[in-house]
Each structure stands twice: as C-alpha cells, then as structure tokens.
C-alpha cells in the first residue's frame, strides 16, 4: 500500500506544483490579501480633496461644522497612534500626549507629531472649506454642476457640496450632485447636534466645560479575570496575553477554512481530468482503489502544507527583516499570539481538526469529481458543498463578538462545521468530554464519508456513473416519485 500510495501522491503532487497556476496562487494570494487589507487606506489616500462651502448669515453653524471636521481628523489620528487602546478605551501614553497637545491648541498634524507619529502617514483631508462664491443658494447651480470653478488653495476647482443655512425656514440644506458620499452630510448633522446641545446648555446656564469635566471624571472600567493555580500571582486585569488565544483561534479557523477552500478544487479538477482522460481502468489495474484515493488526498494535503509552509516562512522572514522597525507594543502583541498558538491545548485540536476536516471535505470533492466529465457538470453538484463551506465563515463573525455564543456551541456539534468551530471554542476552555466527543463524532463522520466516497468513486470510475445518476438517486428518495433511471 505504502509504495503505490506514495507513487500516486508523488505524481499528483508534482503535477500540481509544476502547474503555473499553483505558483500564481502561491505568490498572488498574500498580495491580494494585502491589497484587500490596505484597500480602504489606499482608497482614502487616492480620493481627491473635495471642496465645500457654507452659506450662512453669521458663522455659528460654520464654526460647529469646522470643529466637527477637525474632531474627525483628530479621532483618525488618535486611532493611528494606538489602535488597540483607542478601540478598547484603555490608557495610552501616545494618545494622552496627543490629547494634551490638542487641548493646548495645536493642530492635528502638530499634535500627531508631538505624540510620536509621523505626520506623513496621516491621511489627506477629505473636505476643505472654501469661501462661498455666491450669497444665496439659488445661485449655486453652475458651481455644483462644475460649469464654474471656485477658488481654492490649489487653484480653481469644482465645488463638491454646499450647505445653506436657511434662517427663514429654519432648515439646513445640503446641496451636492454626489448622492452617495455621506461623510460631509453626517458631519453637518453632528455639527447641528453639537450646536443645539450648546444652546440648550447655555439656556440653563451650564457651560460645555461641565461635559468635559464629566468625561474626565469617568472611571475606567477595567476588565478583570479570576486567576488561579500557577497564574494566581499575576495581575487580574485582562491583558493582550489573555486575549491572544481568542485572536489566534479565529486566525487558525480562518486559515483552515481558507486552506480547505483553496486546495479542494485541485482534488476536483484532478479527478475530472482523470475521468475525462479515461485513465481509471489503467490505474485500477495497477493500484487498489483505497490506495489510489489515499494517494490523491495526501497529494493535495501536501499541497496545502506547501502553501502553509511558504506563507508561514515568508511571514516569518518578513517579520525578522522588519524587526527593527516593529514598535515594541506591536512586537509584544505578536509575541503573545505566537505563545498562544504554541499552546498544545489550542494547536493539538487545531491540527486534528485540520486533518479530519480536510479528509472529510476532500473525500466529498473527490467522489463528486469522479461523477463529472466537465467543470460545468461539477458546478451543479458543488453548490451545496460550497454553501456548507461558507457557513463556518459566517460563524467567525459571531466568534469575534462572543466565542462562547450558544450558536457556536451548538453548531460545533455538526460534524461538517466541527473542524472550524471547535478551534474557535478552544480558548473558552470547554469541558474535555465535549472536546473529545466532538473530535470523536468528527472522526466517525470522516470515516463514514471516506467509505461512502470510495463507493461513489468506484461507481463513477468503474461503472461510469454520472451527474444524472445522482439526481436519479435523490429522485428515488422522494416518496411517490418513480425514477426513470
């Protein structure tokens, strides 16, 4: 068995890795993922500055809008200085320095620099206010349509939007030909909200300072956890190290899903190729069917490991070469993730889940591929499987919010989802019997699927069964329906 399985594995594996498509996927996947992650930043930086004006008797609303827009820039700068602290509302030296600089009247750019940020990395201002070219809203049309340009610091430019404060009607009108961009109109609404709040406070002789004082007096709600045993001496406050297993489990579950989703097509394509090339009889007189299937599954598993190794080593090397420029707190965070990933309580179930999950889905795709002569035929059978594979991805969103969600706990018992969801559950330290039971059910289901897949593969490879036979089979299951097959 070992020799024939090895030979099938070797042939298939070398066939896959010698295809240019494999290397294209290997190299381009990280690039595409990188682009996907950085796309919002790129898009923001690529977006041209938009010019707006405010027509108002006086400057009250205009001032409120200016404050709001600069506040928005300040919030962006704070988030860039220490994303984790800003999201979680925890203390941060950088953010405190920035706030102090703003408080003392510094511009966002200057405060960002004072807090240790590089102003070059700050995104460009989205909206720049210009003087109103006309005194009433009724004369704005040619400017908004781009027929007449407005004077800006960068020379004549089209007017993107105008806000007209109509004292007579008591309304604020937002004029723009772009109906989709919501940022400026949201800022205007917020500014009006702030303005009216200030007026209400003034009416009862309360200064806005009171709100600032109240905010300053807010007590931080610090997340704590009970520590016992070896951890009894550690501070009870929740740290990055505590959160790392949850982050790692989500990364692992996503990686498993992504790998299975990426390589499963190779099994499908390989089998369809062999069926359409009519090579099964030659193979089946040289190697036993279970050995043939084992060889094929191993070949694609090796392919998945090759991808993992390539991307893992690549990431490791990049981190190593960039180690000098990685901020200490980021390095510490990465260290926590590595430590969490190295925990056997997480990686042992992860590895078992990966292998069983791969075998389960791999055998299904292999069997269905043996029934198809063309990709078009395969697509009709693959849709339910792909939909099944998408469900765990949706579960990841739940896990990010609450890894102990009852939904995840229940769905983890469904063997088709267990490979992904068990990993997500591991940081919540579920009872050992549950882990073992879910692994056991998953292993049993995998064995049953392997057995059935072998039978389906034999039907497809030896007897030439096809897609129509599958539909005929399901037709027979419908009570009262006679199948023509």
């Amino acid at each position, binding site marked *: 068995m070992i020799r*024939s399985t090895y*030979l099938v594995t070797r*042939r298939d594996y070398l*066939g896959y890795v*010698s*295809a240019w498509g494999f290397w294209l996927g290997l190299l381009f996947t990280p690039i595409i993922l990188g682009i996907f992650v950085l796309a919002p930043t790129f898009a923001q930086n690529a977006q041209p500055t938009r010019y707006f004006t405010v027509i108002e008797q006086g400057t009250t609303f205009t001032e409120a809008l200016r404050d709001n827009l600069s506040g928005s820039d300040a919030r962006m700068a704070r988030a860039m200085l220490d994303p984790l602290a800003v999201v979680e509302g925890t203390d941060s030296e950088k953010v405190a320095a920035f706030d102090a600089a703003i408080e003392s009247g510094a511009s966002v750019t200057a405060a960002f620099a004072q807090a240790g940020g590089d102003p070059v990395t700050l995104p460009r201002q989205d909206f720049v206010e210009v003087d109103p070219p006309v005194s009433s809203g009724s004369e704005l049309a040619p400017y908004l349509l781009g027929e007449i340009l407005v004077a800006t610091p960068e020379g004549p430019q089209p007017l993107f939007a105008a806000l007209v404060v109509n004292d007579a009607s008591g309304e604020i009108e937002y004029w723009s030909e772009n109906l989709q961009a919501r940022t400026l109109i949201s800022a205007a609404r917020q500014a009006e909200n702030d303005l009216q709040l200030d007026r209400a406070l003034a009416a009862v002789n309360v200064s806005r300072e009171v709100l600032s004082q109240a905010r300053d007096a807010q007590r931080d709600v610090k997340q704590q956890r009970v520590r016992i045993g070896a951890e009894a001496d550690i501070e009870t406050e929740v740290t990055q190290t505590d959160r790392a297993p949850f982050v790692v489990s989500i990364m692992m579950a996503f990686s498993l899903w992504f790998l299975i989703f990426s390589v499963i097509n190779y099994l499908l394509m390989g089998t369809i*190729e*062999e069926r359409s*090339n*009519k*090579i*099964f*009889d*030659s*193979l*089946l*007189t*040289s*190697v*036993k069917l279970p050995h043939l299937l084992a060889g094929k599954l191993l070949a694609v598993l090796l392919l998945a490991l090759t991808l993992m190794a390539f991307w893992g080593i690549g990431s490791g090397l990049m981190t190593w070469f960039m180690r000098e420029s990685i901020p200490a707190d980021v390095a510490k965070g990465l260290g926590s993730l590595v430590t969490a990933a190295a925990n056997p309580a997480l990686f042992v179930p992860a590895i078992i889940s990966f292998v069983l999950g791969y075998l389960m889905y791999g055998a299904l795709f292999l069997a269905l591929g043996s029934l198809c002569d063309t990709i078009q035929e395969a697509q009709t059978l693959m849709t339910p499987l792909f939909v099944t594979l998408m469900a765990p991805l949706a579960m990841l969103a739940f896990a990010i919010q609450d890894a102990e969600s009852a939904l995840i706990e229940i769905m983890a018992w469904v063997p088709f989802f267990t490979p992904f969801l068990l990993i997500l559950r591991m940081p919540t330290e579920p009872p050992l019997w549950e882990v073992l039971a879910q692994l056991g059910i998953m292993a049993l289901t995998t064995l049953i699927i392997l057995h059935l897949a072998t039978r389906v593969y034999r039907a497809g490879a*030896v*007897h030439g069964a096809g897609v129509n036979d599958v539909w005929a089979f399901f037709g027979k299951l419908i009570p009262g329906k006679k199948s023509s097959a």
Partner: protein
Amino acid sequence: MSGETPLKMTGVSKWFGSFQAVRNLDFEVPKGSIVGFLGPNGAGKSTSLRMALGVLSPDRGDVKLLGAQPNLESLKRVGFLPEERGLYKKMSPRQIITYFARLKGMSHRDAKARADELLDMMGLGEFGRSRVTKLSKGMAQKVQILSALAHRPDFLILDEPFSGLDPVNQQALEDLIIDEHKRGATIVFSTHVMEHAERLCEKIVMMARGRKVFDGTLEDAFTALGRAVHIGASDGFDMTAAMAPAGFEAQKDGDHWRIGLKPTQTSQDALRAAIDLGAPITSFTPQEARLRDVFVSLVSEAEAQDLTDTLAADDADGRDAA
C-alpha cells in the same frame, strides 16, 4: 511464469441493472498462447476482460487470473490496454511509461531505462520528453501500449489494440505482439477486425450478445463454417439432382451452385464429379474459408437464438399475465 493458467473464467455472468452483459461465460487462456477475443460491438468483450482483471466483479461465476482471484500481486504480472484510451495530458510519454511501470513494481531507474528503450524501439524517442498533447493520436496510443508492457508482463490483455491505428502502425503493433509472444508472454486481445486474429492467433474465442459462440483453434473455426466450392453451369442444368448420387450437396446460390464439402472431400473431388456427370461448367471457384465468414455466421446464429429466447420469454410473460 510458473505453470499456472493465465486466465480461466468459469460460468461468469454480469448484469448491469436488468441488462445481462455477459452470460455464463467459460473460457481459458492457455499459457504461452495468443488468443483472439472476437465479437461485434456490445458483445460483452470489454466487460469480460474487465472482470478478468478484477476491475468489475462478476455477479456469478469464478475468475482465476494467474491461478488466483484477481489481486494486486497477480495484476503486477499483467499488462492491460483498456478499450477507452487515456493518458495524463500534462505528462510526457517517458513520465507516463515510467509511472505505470513503477506502479507495477519496477524500480525508478529500471522504469526510466525501460521507457527510453521502448520509446526508441517504437520510434518515439524524440517525443519522449514532450507533453502528450503534442503527440498525434496514433503516437499517444503507442505510448499507452508501451505503458501496458513496460514492466515485461507475463500476461498481456489488450482491449481493441488496433482501433484507431493506421495500417503502418497496425503492422508495427502486430510485430510488437509477436515479439512479446516470443519473449514468453501470453496474450489476449479483443478485436472485431478478423484479419489481425487470423494472422496472430492460435486460439479464438467469439462472443455475441454476451454469449460465447465459439472457442477453439482457427482450424476448428473454419471447420465449423464448412468448406465449399462454387460451380457455374449453363441454364437448365440441375446440379442438385446430378451431384446427389456422387455424395455432394448442391444448392442454387444466385447464378451459380454452392457445393458443400464434407471433411473427407476436396474441391478437386467436386470438380471431377461435376465433369464426370456431364455438367456444362462455365466457372469453378473454390470458396476460401475466412474468419470473417465464420464470425458473421456465428454471430447471426447467436442473434437469431437471442431473438428466439426473447420471444419465448415474452410469451411466458404473456401467459403469466393471462
């Protein structure tokens, strides 16, 4: 190869749903022989050969391949060319031959050397490292044949090996089969082209409608058909009446008479008798026995028998229903 019979099938039947593809098949391939497995399309030849190799399991009966139930060990001594041709399109002929030879147990080095040797022998040396997609259909078929015999099998099973080959390549394949036979291999090949069987085979097995209709030597096949001469005579001469006293059976066959020959009679005997009887002879043609005629005759009989069986079964069903 030890003394075991390469292939013995006993009472083998195979159904696909309600259709019976092979019916109670008995036959044996003697060691060291070349056996022709003949029959029209749909006769059950490929199904029988796939059962012989264990690819399909018989529903009834017993198959012994090299003395045992077909298994991976016995299959290592067998080379098989399936009816449905196929190769890995992205591999080179050299890689394919090496791969299948290794699956049959050869070492990597021996398999590669053997692949080079066979490719050179068949004039495909220069294409050895090209992708299969660059080969012509005939070349690709040769590669598949070479894959079947690369591991020097004791027993070669070739399903329709000549189909799709041009006459030159058919001759090359015949030569290859003869060479393999000389090497000591036992060979079974299926075909519906009788000329190949006439030239190569010592033994013939014929199938029609899933049944074996003949199993024997070429001579047996010709005997089964019966020999004859065709004699032309002037109008009005009754050859049947004239030849009967001399022990010959004559039948009108178009514009001439067909005189059947018994095993002890020769065509010269028939001619001499006709002259002696004063027949006004206008032509004389000894009928050469051809396997094609045997084949057509036996297949027609089998089809007639099949039709009779079907009608009888329908009648029985009708009676049951009544």
